[in-house]
Structures are given as structure tokens and as C-alpha cells.
């Protein structure tokens, strides 16, 4: 197991370095473009050249890449062009906001999906199963921008019980979090739920569950102790991949509700070519993706002793 963890972490570092290189090449490959985005569209060629010399952008790509990497590693993310402040000052705040949104969504979504999936799969073909299955397919087929509009229509304009924007201008507010979380959960839970249901239904027909039943164990005990762990192995990987999906879903939802998060920041930075901000956001996004993938694989292995003790 330790072996595997080390190998996995090694791969992860390697992937990060490669991705960082790509990010770097795209954003800082051409020094004139950097100078242009910093100095603005009206700067003259000599000004650009002077800026390039002054900031050391005439040196080789290789040198600059390692310089950048070592700066990033020491925590210096550079200055934002739009905000004219160190990226560090804006970035972590926004990331934190998104972490809250994604974290809450994730918790709600996983709990709802697992509970519904297990309830459905426990008794395959029952009414309970059919109701849950239809519901989870229906919600997944509505994209999040549509459900954002529909839910806002119902709760904000018709019932008027929830605020329509979530910019949190008056400080952190749970109420403002409800709609974005709801939208993301509705869109995302169906996939995990169906996966869990299929996995659970399969486990319930295995000979070892038959053994557990014929040992005279109470039904609850069979579900909790014998079925769940095996049934959750397959959805576990999906759940981890779902975090990646959440990141992209977050961009749309944050935008729809004016939530000041990382997704909105990324959008803004990309639109206005704010190089260091893009790089920071890109690195963060890729890190989350690679990290969850790794945790997913390791978790799968850990849960499944047949692989763990190979």
C-alpha cells in the first residue's frame, strides 16, 4: 500500500510539472504578448522592448520556467494585471469561497446520492427503486444554467423566499448559498446515485449476501455491514471524478448567481488576459483534478482488499 501511495504521488508531481510547463508556454511563451497585456494596447514597440529587458523576459524559456516554478513553490504567484495587486491577495479568498460552495455541494450531493442509490439498489425493481431512478435521470438531464433559471423563478420571484444573487456583499450568508448548492446538487447527484444503485443491486445478488441472510443476520446489519462497503467501492471513483466536474459546474453557477468565487475569477482573468491570474487559477484547477484522481484510485485500492493485498 505504501508503495502504491509513493508511486501515485510521484506520478502526480510529474503530471503537475508537465501541466505547469504547458500553462507557462501558452501564457509566457511570447514575451511581447506579456509586455502588451501589462502595458496595454497603446504601448509602443520600444516601450515593450524596454519592459522585456527590464523584467528579464529576454532570457531563455528554460531559465524563466524554472525561475517561475521556484517562485510558485515559495508562494509568490506574481501580480494581477487587472487588480494591480499580488495575485495572492485576491486568489486565496476566491478559492476559499469556491471551496465553501463546492464543499457544501459535495457533502449534500454525496449524502443524498448515496442514500438514494442504496435505497433504490437494496430492493431492485420495487416502487421505491423506480421512483428514485426516474427522479435521478430526470434531474441529470436538465443542465445547470436551465435549472438555475427555473429554481430562481420559483424561489426568488414566485415564492420570494430566497435571494436571487449570492454575491455575499453583506458578509457570509448561508441563505445565499442555498440556491447555488441546490442547482449543483440537482445536476450532479443523479450520476452518483445511479452508479450506487447499480452497484448495490449487484452486491445484493451475490452469494456472500445470501450467506449473510442465511446466517440469520438482521436486515439492517446485512445492509450496513455486508453490503455497503462492497457496494461503495465502484461509486467511490465516480465520486472523486465528480469533484472535477464540480469545478466546471461551479464556473457556470457562480456566474449565474454572481457568487464571488474562483470560477468567476477564472472567467474574468481569461477574458482580460490577466496572465499571472490565469496561471494561478490553471494550476489550482489542474491540481484539484489530479489530486482527486489520485485520492480516488488510492481510496478504491484501500476499500478493496483484493487489490490491497496483492
Amino acid at each position: 500500500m505504501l508503495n502504491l501511495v509513493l508511486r501515485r504521488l510521484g506520478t502526480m508531481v510529474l503530471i503537475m510539472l508537465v501541466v505547469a510547463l504547458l500553462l507557462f508556454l501558452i501564457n509566457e511563451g511570447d514575451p511581447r504578448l506579456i509586455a502588451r497585456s501589462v502595458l496595454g494596447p497603446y504601448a509602443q514597440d520600444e516601450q515593450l522592448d524596454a519592459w522585456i529587458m527590464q523584467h528579464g523576459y529576454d532570457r531563455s524559456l528554460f531559465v524563466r520556467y524554472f525561475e517561475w516554478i521556484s517562485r510558485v513553490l515559495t508562494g509568490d504567484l506574481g501580480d494581477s494585471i487587472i487588480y494591480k495587486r499580488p495575485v495572492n491577495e485576491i486568489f486565496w479568498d476566491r478559492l476559499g469561497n469556491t471551496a465553501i460552495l463546492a464543499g457544501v455541494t459535495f457533502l449534500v450531493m454525496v449524502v443524498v446520492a448515496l442514500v438514494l442509490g442504496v435505497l433504490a439498489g437494496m430492493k431492485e425493481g420495487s416502487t421505491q427503486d423506480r421512483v428514485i431512478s426516474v427522479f435521478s435521470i430526470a434531474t441529470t438531464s436538465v443542465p445547470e444554467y436551465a435549472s438555475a433559471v427555473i429554481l430562481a423563478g420559483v424561489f426568488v420571484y414566485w415564492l420570494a423566499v430566497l435571494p436571487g444573487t449570492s454575491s455575499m456583499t453583506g458578509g457570509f450568508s448561508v441563505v445565499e448559498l442555498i440556491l447555488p448548492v441546490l442547482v449543483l446538487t440537482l445536476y450532479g447527484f443523479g450520476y452518483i446515485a445511479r452508479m450506487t444503485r447499480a452497484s448495490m443491486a449487484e452486491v445484493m445478488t451475490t452469494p456472500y449476501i445470501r450467506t449473510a441472510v442465511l446466517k440469520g443476520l438482521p436486515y439492517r446489519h446485512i445492509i450496513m455491514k455486508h453490503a455497503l462497503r462492497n457496494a461503495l467501492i465502484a461509486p467511490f471513483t465516480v465520486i472523486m471524478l465528480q469533484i472535477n466536474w464540480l469545478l466546471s459546474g461551479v464556473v457556470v453557477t457562480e456566474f449565474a448567481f454572481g457568487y464571488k468565487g474562483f470560477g468567476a475569477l477564472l472567467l474574468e482573468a481569461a477574458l482580460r488576459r490577466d496572465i499571472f491570474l490565469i496561471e494561478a487559477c490553471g494550476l489550482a484547477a489542474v491540481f484539484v483534478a489530479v489530486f482527486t484522481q489520485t485520492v480516488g484510485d488510492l481510496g478504491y485500492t484501500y476499500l478493496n482488499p483484493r487489490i490491497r493485498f496483492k
Partner: protein
Amino acid sequence: MSVTEHAGASGDDAPVLEISGLRLSYYTRAGEIPAVMDFDLTVRKGESVGLVGESGCGKSTVANGIMRYMGRNGGIVGGSIRFKGRDMSEFSEEEIRRIRGRDIAMIYQEPMASLNPSMTIARQLTEVPMVHEGVSEEEARRRAREMLEAVHIPDPNRLMASYPHQVSGGQQQRVVIAMALLSRPALLLLDEPTTALDVTVEAGIVELIAELSKEAGTSLLYISHNLGLMLEVCDRICVMYSGEVVEEGHIDSIFSWPKHPYTHGLFGCIPLPHADKNARPLVAIPGQLPLPHQRPTGCYFGPRCSFFEPGRCDGDLVAMESVHTDDDPAHRVRCLRWNEIDHDAAVRVEETREPVSVGETVLEVDNMRKYYEVRETSLAALVSRGSPRQVKANEQISFRAGEGETVAIVGESGCGKSTFAKVLMGLETATEGEVRLDGTDLGSIPVKQRTPEQLASLQMVFQNPNDTLNPSHSVGAQIARVIRRFGIESEPARVQQQVFRLLDTVKLPRDFASRKPRQLSGGQKQRIGIARAFAGNPKTVIADEPISALDVSVAAAVTELLMDIQREHRTTLLFISHDLSAVRYLSDRVVVMYLGQIMERGSTEEVFAPPYHPYTEALLSAVPIADPEVEKRRIVLEGNLPSPLDPPKGCPFSTRCPRRLGSICDTDPPPVQMNADRHAIACHIPLEELRLVEPVITIPERDALPAGEGATG
């Protein structure tokens, strides 16, 4: 102790289980499937009752019905099941739950699948007393440890901490047995508990079950299709056919005086020691078990019965009748003509066959070795860069096989039989030595480099035909493909002709050519496998456990078919098997392998009589024989097959050998001693001593029977 209070009957003779008129059905889209009809059974305290019959006759359904575990689509339609005098149909779900695992326990065929892969063995064991008797965890652990010791697990503590996949199949089944016996149930249901295990392991498990149930006074309902096993385990036996009992009685009575034509048919299908492929060939029961919703009127066995009498056997349902044999007043049979039929006279009707004369040597294996390299993937191994370890899958294999000869290769699973087959087929190449087929060394030619003639001349029949038949093509097309590939025929009409001829050879109707594999039964698929193997007129055919997955009657038919084709084509047959009864029946020579090495080889008579190699001796003892007159010495092997990665230094068998001499066996490889011209034994014990060993199996003289006369012709 579990105590279930019950009204009325008690005492030692009161039945533990009383089933009468039980009817069980499944409900499918096609309608009701009456799997079990009018089933009666009584099991008394401490008694062990066997339930035999072809697969699909409803044995498992009965066991599940008793447990009231019939799945979503099954249910009890009629009749009653009384457990210790109480009608189980009156039990609530909660009462049933409390009986399961505490008063009635069940053991299944696949031990690996029956254990939860993600729970330690300790937890799976301890939960039984914790749930049923509310004992503390320490107490439960103590009982679990005791029970593991009782099932002869050498290191219970280590085992308890393990997950199921970390222990061997035999140990898994011991764990399952321990789990079933933890609450000292009054009744134990066993559904083919050893079918998935090796013979040597099976012998140990069967002995263990008998020993433990005797000790605790547990009643057994033992389901199996293996009549030999029944004889070793059961007091009474019920023969089931198409959802009902057709004959029941004391084991001796049934084995000595079987009355029902079906019971007789079953005995005719199994290779008993006095069966002989030429003088007394096996006789399969014609036809197939009817589907439960397509039973004939009158006697269900009618269409397959050679004593069928129109107007009588196809009238009303046949009732059970008492037979009163000398051995057993309770012997009953469901046949209208049981006292008119003279089975002994009927037996002689079957034809005898000319023995095949063995021709020149076709296949010659000379000092063949096959080593696999295993690389370790752990970081430590990568760092230390140690040399890769070797698995010696085959070591110094030498033997010859002549034209028309059948050579059996026997041994427990993992002994290298399949590796040897792979080298012959060219799926692997030999590390050293030669495998000559008709003078050409094939051992070093991988399958891709073999000429079509070389491919055609060496073919294989597999244990599970499903693995090699393409589910999406018709079987005719698959046979045709082989014919074209081997260059036998290329013109479409003639290929088609050839396909039909092959179907005739394997006794399948010609219109089967257009069928898909899923439209065929297991036996029919195996026939297609045989047709394909013989498509290119092979000189040699390797049959890797060709009948071990088949039902007795189907196995008999396939065995006879294989022998017939061999006779006609004078094919050399390499028969890989762990079933020594079948080996004795059909092979001329036997090669006994253990951990990749040949322990003994010789003619069938030589190998089956002293002097034996100690391993052969143990294998012979492990095979159940369905003949009460055959006497057998019991030798149960302890321990598991050692890992081929780390084999014993001296004699490979030294870790389990009951006759081990001492340290010489651990340190020095045994010498190969020649007892006769081609009879070799690899053992340190001198031949003179081995010759003094008593025979494992004593077969009584049979010349009292009329059978003896025909055999000498």
C-alpha cells in the same frame, strides 16, 4: 446451545425435518415454473440424508425452500415443512431469521463467493454468535478460534486476521463450515459443498463434515451429483428426478438393489472400478431432463426410460411404493414396473467394443522444462535489483504416447498440467528439452509459427467450451472456419459437407450448424468443441478436463463419444484430469504429476496397483467410489500444495507425504526407480518396500454376476 422450544414430539428419534407434499415454483414471464412437485423427506436427529439427481432437477430449490430463501420470484405453493415438529409456514419473518444460521445452517458450492471479500474472516465468524446469542466480542472470538481449530485450521489467529482471498480454496471451505457450525445447528444443508475443490481437498472436507456432525449430533442434508461421495457421507439417500423423489432408501439398499430405471441409469453413467471401456462401456441415459413446465403425462421419466410401456406409464401420475428389500424396509420407489424389470438381464444388452491396438510412438516428450520468470513490482525489489524469481511449472517431463493410445495426466490443480498443455499447443515455448510430434520438435515453435498441418495435427478440447466458442457466430460457421484454416477444404459446398460430417460424428443433428452457442446445452457445446478439435484429422488431441463440468449422464455420453472417435481415427489422446475414476476407465497409461514434476508413470494397471508412489496412493484414496463393495484405505493429505515459487528442496511431495522417510526427503531430490519397463516411480523409498504396500482399493471379484462372462470375450 440453541434451544428452540417446541410443542409435542421430542426425544432422539423425533424427526428434525419433515417435508411432505412440498411444491415450490418460480414465477417468470413465461409463467409458473413448478420446479419441485410433491416432495417428501424426513431427516431424523443425527442422520445424514443425501439428495442426488441431474442438475436442474430441483435439488437447490428444495434447500432454498427449507431456508425460505427463494428469491424475489420463487415461493412455496403447497405442502408443509416442519422443523422440530413446528410448521415453518407459521413462522414470521423474524422467527425465520432467528432459525437461519442458528438452528439450520447452509453451505454452498463456491466457498470464495460465499465469503464477503471486504471483511476479515474473524468478523464474518464472530457476528454469528454475537447476533444469535448476544455474546460479547471476546467470547465470540474465543468460540471462533475454537471452531477453526475444530475444522483443523493450523494457525487460527493468522487466519482470523486474513481476508478470504488470502487463503486457499480448501481453507475457505473450512471457514465456511466453521461459520455454519458455530451455533451448533440441528440441521446442516450442504449444496454441492466440494464440487469446486480438488479431490484431495474434497476428501479432507468430507471427512471433516462427517466427523463434526457425528460429534455434535447434527443432521445433514447433503446435495451432490456425486454418488461416490454419497456413499461416504450419507445414511440414507433420495434420488430426485424432475422435481420429485423417484427412489429413496438406506444407502446400502439403494446401492445394492436400485429399483428405479433412473437410479440404474445413473450408476451406468459413472466409471466404477469394474467398468471397462471395451468390455463394459458406460451407458448414458438417453434424452434430457424435461423442463419443469414441459413434463410429460404419467411418469416424468417415461420418455427416457427403456422400460416405458405405452398406455401404462403415460397414464396417471405415478405414486411412491414400498419395496421392502432385505436391507431396508423403508426403501421406496416411484415406478409402476419396478418388480417386473430384470436389471441384470438388461445390463447385458449394451454392446462391447474391440480394444484399440497401440501403434508406433507419435508423441515423445523428452526432459521438457518450462520455467516462468516472475518479476516483483514492489519498490524494494526495484531498488535492490534482485534477479527475477523462477516458477518451475514443469520440470523434467518425459514420456511417450503411441498412435491410438490414451495417456492420462493427473494431479491436483496447480501441479502443472495446464502448463504442459500450453507448451504442446505452442501457447508457450519450452525452456528446455524436446516435445516431438511425429519426429518434429514442436516445443520451441510458438503457435504463430506453426504450419497449418502442424496446427491441425495437434488439437485441444477444453474444460469449459464457453471459453472458446464465439457467442455471436453460429457453431457451423465456427467449425467451417477451422476447416478452412487447416486447409482441409476451401470450396464452400465441400466445407459445408465437412461440417455436416463432423456434426454426424459428434452425434448432433445437422440443423445445429445454424445455431448460436447459447442455444445449446453444456453437453452439446462440448460436442461442438470436440467436432472442432477433430476437424483437421488431428494425430493428437489434448482433452483438458473435458467432462468435469458436465452432469454424470452427459459426461458419460461425451466420454463414450470421445472414445468412439478416437477408435475410428486412431488418435492419440492426452487426457488431463483429476478424476481418477474416469482416468482408470479410459486411459492406457497414466502420468502422475505433482508441483510440475512427474512422480509416477506407467500403464494404468501398474499405476493403480502397488507399488505406488506415496502421492498416487493418496490420490487413489481420495477418489470417492460409488460401490459399497469396494473397500478403500483412507489416507487424508494434510496441508496445502506448496507455492511453486518456493518449492521444497528435495522431494516436492515431502511437505505432505504420509510416508516421508526423514531429512533425506527434504534435502535430496528422489531417484527415479524403474519398477518395470515403462513404470517409473520417483521416491527415496526402495521399490521392494513400496511393493509391500497394501492396495488402496480392493475390488471384490465380480464373476458371480453374469457380467463377468461377457467381459472375457
